[in-house]
């Protein structure tokens, strides 16, 4: 079984690195990029140790690559040919790689009081209903917009996820240039200081999981 960890650009080598089952890593070229895979005997189990191991590996790969898109935990193929067919069918991977080139991800979770709303969009019965649900999500957490605007030019891209859970207003994912984490944190601190009833948790830098 082929276990897929990431798709990377300009990843020189994987010397000294092994997969979550201790297996050697292999670089499989496709379309100008490289898939980082390992051959495992069984699908890795979902447990804390394996999650940590995969995340640690993806971070090290990210450090060695010009651009990297992490795969979701559990992504596997029965064999290499099937994996290559699947990758080839996703032309958008290459443009996504270009978008994260030289970048890393920062995350700010915004805590505070928010109005509980129904944030379901996938259950919409019509296109109009879907768009209305999206608009509802957008307006559900206006506090998050402060953190979108507040980082200014530091962010190459942003994703906002309002939360349906009381206490967590939502999460904002920013794609910033590598090495910009300190400046980012200062910017977030400035935004948070200007808001009442809101606290933030900032994490990162990390590989661009939310932009993969």
């Amino acid at each position, binding site marked *: 079984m082929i276990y*897929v960890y990431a*798709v990377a650009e300009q990843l020189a080598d994987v010397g000294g690195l092994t997969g979550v089952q201790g297996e050697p890593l292999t670089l499989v070229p496709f379309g100008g990029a490289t898939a980082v895979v390992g051959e495992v005997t*069984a*699908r*890795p*189990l*979902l*447990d*804390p140790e394996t*999650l*940590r191991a*995969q*995340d640690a590996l993806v971070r090290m790969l990210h450090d060695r690559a010009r651009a990297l*898109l*992490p*795969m*979701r*935990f*559990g*992504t*596997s*193929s029965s064999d290499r040919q*099937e*994996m290559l067919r*699947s*990758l080839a*069918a*996703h032309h958008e*991977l290459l443009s*996504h790689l270009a978008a994260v080139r030289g970048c890393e991800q920062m*995350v700010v*979770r915004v*805590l505070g009081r928010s109005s509980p709303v*129904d*944030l*379901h*969009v*996938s*259950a919409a019965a019509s296109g109009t209903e879907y768009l209305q649900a999206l608009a509802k999500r957008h307006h559900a957490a206006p506090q998050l917009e402060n953190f979108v605007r507040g980082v200014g030019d530091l962010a190459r891209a942003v994703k906002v*996820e309002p*939360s*349906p*859970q*009381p*206490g*967590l207003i939502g*999460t904002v994912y920013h794609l910033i240039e590598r090495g910009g984490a300190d400046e980012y944190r200062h910017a977030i601190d400035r935004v948070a200081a200007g808001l009442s009833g809101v606290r933030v*948790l900032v*994490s990162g830098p*990390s*590989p661009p*999981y*939310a932009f*993969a």
Partner: protein
Amino acid sequence: MTDRPHPPFLPTPPHPSDRRAVSALLESPDTSLIDLVDSLLDKGVVLDGEVVLGLADVDLVYLRLTLLLVAADRVLPPKGQ
């Protein structure tokens, strides 16, 4: 490869007491757990391929964190189900 974005261990909406606990969980000493769950289980590239999770030895903390943190439209069943 087949995609299974809805992990099979998440059929139940979070209990109100779990919802109230979100701030406490977010401020737990090991907030890296949150990032792990958020990043590796809910984000990342999903091919039309297969994302299958082995379920043995799943720690309850992960179930709880996942319920709290994964976007609702990806976790909770549509209304009426």
